[in-house]
């Protein structure tokens, strides 16, 4: 099992965090190997949004591109019946009185979940990083917004983030690399219609070029980011970070390779045991290890790496590996606008309302939210789902109605704060194992006490906006109240200054094992008020790996 490969750093996970870590380290001349359990995707071969039957296919499910998870979810409270998920033609989406496991929406592979993301590029609200000191709940980040800002700048520059200079929702420490995209026609109409309600919209910052940028073409607004970007303009991690890392000659990327176990001795990680696509094991002994497998798989790997010196799992001296799990808090409401708007056109979420995003912006609770159009992300852009989900009936009448209404479907989404609490955590399933014989991650996701009320606010506000827009009849309502459906997960290896209340330090470095780092959303002490996390993950990965590179250069590791 011994390996002769000599790497300075092995990064486990090639998604939003691991790719930025690789780009940062390789750019500094650090010999870096990136492993991912999933495959390499080929955008022209795998993403077929140019085929007649494109709508019948989601983001491609290649061998190894999905993990398996089990769950324990809470019973539902009848007081929140209005939050239940339902569809005009498909009925209740979580029948019964138990919360249902929908999906952990992720991609395993080179580029990770950025391959199917909508490329929203959000900085966290500065106050969302200080919930403990400002409001007495959850935890503070171990540094402030200003500390992270230069890393936001650097990652945005590489991504080619397009945004509006008029955006005052977060302090700008540098200009957006690219100007904002023009809002779609439907979004322009929404902005005008909701003005009377006092709703303020602005361009949603996205890692999608509004003009050619560093070899990437400008977007053609097909709206199908979530099915994979055929054109290669979207700022997925494989294109933007791993490609230059590879070009530097200092980085190697190895798909279809699982990290099975991490072994430690005498205060440091000595070995990463891996299994390749041929199911043969091999071991790597780099100077440092960076875990970037996401908030489910990073704690799983640590918990599965228990040893006599770490009986609760590696780096789990605090007992907090897997704890403080935060999930996606979301509502999405859809209906038909009375006028043809061509809603299939444009970025998936081209404008955003941040008015309720600050932690104290929703009356009566701590934790904010934001609103976005999301017609194509709700998969309502094509004729098939339009007919299936927005229209009733059959026969010649159905065909006629489809001709009249296609382009009128519209979905409004809201994403909110997920506060950490004792009832939400990741542990190892005592019964279920993967093909390698390793226990699966089990998602324990009870609702934090204020979550239903936050969802209720998001739903009511969405209804008011849709009504003002001209959509009085809702045809579909999906909420995470009764459906666990997480595209963003956080918190399971919390960073902090105190080893008794955090897993890693402010750079993502294990408090005990000096050459072990974490660089993914596991680090987040709080989730933010609905911001998409990939930019923050990248900024944290850059900050942590710059520190790691310094330690390597000083031979402190």
């Amino acid at each position, binding site marked *: 099992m011994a390996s002769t490969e000599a790497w300075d750093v092995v990064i486990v996970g090639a998604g939003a965090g691991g790719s930025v870590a690789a780009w940062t380290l390789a750019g500094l001349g650090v010999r870096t190997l990136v492993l991912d359990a999933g495959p390499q995707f080929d955008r022209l071969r795998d993403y077929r949004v140019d085929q007649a*039957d494109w709508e019948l296919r*989601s983001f491609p499910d290649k061998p190894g591109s999905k993990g398996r998870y089990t769950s324990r979810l809470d019973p539902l409270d009848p007081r929140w019946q209005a939050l239940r998920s339902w569809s005009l033609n498909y009925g209740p*989406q979580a*029948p019964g009185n138990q919360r249902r496991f929908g999906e952990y929406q992720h991609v395993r592979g080179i580029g990770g979940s950025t391959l199917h993301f909508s490329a929203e590029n959000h900085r966290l609200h500065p106050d969302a990083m200080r919930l403990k000191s400002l409001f007495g709940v959850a935890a503070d980040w171990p540094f402030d917004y200003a500390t992270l800002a230069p890393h936001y700048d650097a990652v945005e520059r590489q991504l080619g983030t397009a945004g509006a200079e008029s955006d005052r929702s977060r302090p700008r420490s540098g200009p957006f690399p690219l100007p904002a995209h023009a809002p779609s026609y439907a979004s322009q109409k929404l902005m005008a219609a909701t003005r009377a309600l006092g709703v303020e919209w602005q361009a949603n910052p996205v890692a999608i070029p509004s003009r050619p940028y560093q070899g990437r073409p400008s977007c053609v607004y097909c*709206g199908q980011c979530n099915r994979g970007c055929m054109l290669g303009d979207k700022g997925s991690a494989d294109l933007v970070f791993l490609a230059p890392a590879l070009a530097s000659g200092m980085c190697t990327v190895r798909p279809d390779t699982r990290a099975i176990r991490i072994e430690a001795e005498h205060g440091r990680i000595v070995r990463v045991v891996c299994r390749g696509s041929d199911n043969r094991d091999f071991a790597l002994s780099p100077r440092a290890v960076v875990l970037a497998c996401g908030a489910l798989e990073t704690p799983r790997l640590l918990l599965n790496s228990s040893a006599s010196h770490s009986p609760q799992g590696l780096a789990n001296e605090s007992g907090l590996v897997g704890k403080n799990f935060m999930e996606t808090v979301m509502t999405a409401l859809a209906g038909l606008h009375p006028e043809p708007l061509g809603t299939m056109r444009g970025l998936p979420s081209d404008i955003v309302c941040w008015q309720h995003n600050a932690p104290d912006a929703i009356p009566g609770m701590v934790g904010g939210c934001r609103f976005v159009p999301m017609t194509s*992300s709700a*998969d309502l852009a094509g004729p098939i789902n339009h007919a299936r989900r927005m229209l009733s009936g059959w026969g010649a009448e159905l065909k006629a109605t489809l001709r009249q209404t296609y382009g009128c479907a519209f979905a409004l989404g809201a994403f909110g704060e997920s506060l950490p609490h004792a009832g939400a955590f990741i542990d190892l399933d005592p019964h279920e194992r993967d093909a390698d014989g390793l226990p699966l991650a089990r998602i324990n996701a009870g609702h934090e006490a204020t979550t239903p009320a936050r969802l209720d606010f998001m739903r009511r506000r969405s209804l008011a906006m849709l009504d003002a827009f001209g959509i009085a009849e809702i045809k579909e309502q999906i909420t995470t109240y009764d459906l666990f*459906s997480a595209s963003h997960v956080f918190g399971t290896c919390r960073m902090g200054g105190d080893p008794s209340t955090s897993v890693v330090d402010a750079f993502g470095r294990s408090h005990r094992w000096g050459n072990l780092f974490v660089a993914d959303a596991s680090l987040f002490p709080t989730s933010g008020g609905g911001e998409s996390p990939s930019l923050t993950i990248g900024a944290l990965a850059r900050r942590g790996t710059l520190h790691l590179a310094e330690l390597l250069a000083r031979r402190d590791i």
Partner: protein
Amino acid sequence: MARSRRQFLRDLLLAAAFAASGITLWWRGRLPSLADGEPTLLALVDTLLPADDSPGALDLGVDKQVLRALAAEAHLSDLARAGLQWFDSAAARPFAQLPLPARSELVARAASADRAKVERAFVDQLRHLTLGFYLAQPQSLQGLAYAGPPMPAGYPDQAIAPQRG
């Protein structure tokens, strides 16, 4: 619902609609085979999406695609066999021999039944499959404000009012 927020939604919609159709093992053995029910299935597909200014589902071979999809999964096959039997026994004559108004009336009855009833689950499933296979074929899209798949052209006109639809 942002997807792959999308993938979850599709899976959920599919799964939730066809659960609890009440088919029990003892009953399964008394059902006609899918092949025996093919004339009924064909008539149902034609009722759901008939020809008008644009081709009907049968013109595009959707019935064969639906049949293949139903046969591919045991639980769908069971549901289809039970559903086809319901449509053939709900009127005095087999469904395929009924005139269009009578067929439509039966489809309406099934579509308004409780979701746990076999006929409702089956007609929902059939509608789902028929629409999917039909609208995935370019010939079905006549008269629709749809220029074809989103790529490679995209929608560079996204910021202005749509030309049609």
